[in-house]
């Protein structure tokens, strides 16, 4: 973490190389959050770039009271929520985006497809997992944005309750209750697919 601080200090002084190092360190996390929130790789890349640019321009406001990762998670989370709210205000583009997302969900399992193409063993199981991933991604997008975000932060990104509370500036109890409701709703939605397995 001290390494993050020194990189942040150098980036704040105009060292773009230092910021690129920070980007490499956190790009996977930021991109995953964007991808799971949006369901589209291209859009997720754009959003991830915007998040990182926003972080770079806001480096002056980073006082070091918290860790850089927490600060970045906070920026990323709020940017995702704001972007989704803005998209919801544009019904035409959002419907188009939903269709594109539905089509591209299948692209979000490159590992399974690649393994199938390579003739890997247990091809049926791989296909089933890829199908399940597509369904999970699709059902994730049917959750409320704040529920979806908290679920992704906890169950995919692996943040603790405390980190989520810091990033979203919420009480721990609120995080706990929202996470429970999000999980139960997703479980209800996924149960038909899980029963058929």
């Amino acid at each position: 973490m001290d390494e993050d601080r020194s990189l942040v200090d150098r980036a704040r002084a105009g060292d773009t190389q230092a910021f690129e190092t920070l980007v490499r360190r956190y790009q996977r996390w930021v991109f995953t959050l964007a991808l799971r929130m949006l369901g589209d790789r291209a859009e997720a890349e754009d959003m991830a770039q915007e998040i990182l640019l926003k972080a770079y321009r806001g480096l002056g406001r980073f006082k070091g009271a918290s860790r850089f990762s927490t600060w970045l998670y906070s920026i990323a989370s709020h940017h995702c929520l704001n972007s989704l709210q803005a998209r919801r205000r544009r019904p035409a583009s959002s419907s188009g985006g939903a269709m594109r997302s539905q089509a591209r969900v299948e692209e979000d399992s490159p590992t399974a497809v690649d393994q199938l193409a390579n003739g890997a063993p247990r091809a049926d199981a791989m296909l089933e997992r890829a199908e399940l991933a597509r369904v999970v991604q699709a059902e994730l997008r049917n959750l409320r944005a704040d529920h979806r975000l908290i679920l992704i932060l906890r169950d995919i990104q692996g943040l603790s309750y405390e980190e989520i509370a810091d990033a979203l500036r919420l009480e721990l109890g609120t995080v706990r209750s929202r996470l429970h409701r999000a999980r139960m709703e997703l479980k209800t939605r996924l149960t038909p697919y899980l029963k058929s397995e």
Partner: protein
Amino acid sequence: MKCDQVRQAFSDLYDERLSGPPLVTITQHLATCQDCRAEWADFRKAMLAVSDLGRAEPSLGFAARVRRRIETPTRFQRFLHGFFFPLRVKVPIQALALLLVAFAGVLLYQRSPELRRGTDLYSAPAPPVGREVPVTRPAPAGPPVTKPPAEERLQARPSEPVPASPPRAALEGERDRAAPAFRDEVKPLEKPAPPADVPKTEETARESRAKTAEPDVPVGRLRQVAPPAAESGGPAAPSQLAPKALAVPQAAPKPREAPASGKEAQTSAGQLRSADELYFDALADSARQRYDRSIEDFRAFIDQHPRDTRVPEARLRLADAYVAERRLAEAVQEYETLVREFPGSPLLPAALFKLGQARLDLGDRSGCQSLRNLIVRYPQAPEAALARETLSARCP
């Protein structure tokens, strides 16, 4: 513990946030309740499916692209940079442009008379009329040396274009037309100084004007017979006077033929005198029984302003002055001219009566015929009664 309470704790149970008695109670309930156990199994499967999504990698070169976007200046930054940098080039260019704009502004100001006159109007300390006062008043004895104001300004500023003067002339013309009272104030500036032997001509003129406003003898009598032209259209017709007043400073002086006296000299210098001045001066002289001067002024008035509406009255008074001077033949000539040239004038009864009397005084019996004509043509006129008396007395 009820099933609902157990299922509410699934999330904490999954995250291993339960411990102690709650964990024991829920574990025992799940061991005994098949439905809750199935629900718990579905819950775990769903959560595992979500976890299996895992993290995703962005495309290759993502970090480099982010860096490039960071290093690419924004549109506003590009504008600022392009406007100011490099300083060693842009600053001299901008300074030069500023100088050019300032130079163009000065040039525009110098080449635009309207702009200059506009600023002169606000910055000139003294009005031009006041400056002209001593200039327009000619010396009493010498020839007129008055320069027109426009000419004076042209000499003061030779570089100024000629069209600078018309607006002022037009302004003065407008002033004369619109405000006779103002014209009266300007009039002394243009009037030549009176000669030493004629005291206070302006005062007498004003007095005579006052007298024309009141019934008086002989003027008042004439006004009873017929309203004087001064009332009917004289001073109240500034449109006829204004062009003459304007033309005075610019017209070439036409000296009268061989002025014989101081009064004649005044008249000669009086090219600048207006019709009003001549007429009222003549009236004033007549009232003061200075008939010789009155005759000169009336004569000058008739000669110089033959189209003035007061000419009939001036001719009648001129003839009266001749009568007063006992120059009856000239008086008869003037009465005859009046009767001949203004047959419709309201002054005609008076003119006929006086003509008859003058002829009779000369021993001319045709005066009786003039009186008869008066009685025939104007039987209701006051002069008709006088004519009857005269006829009965002098034309038996």
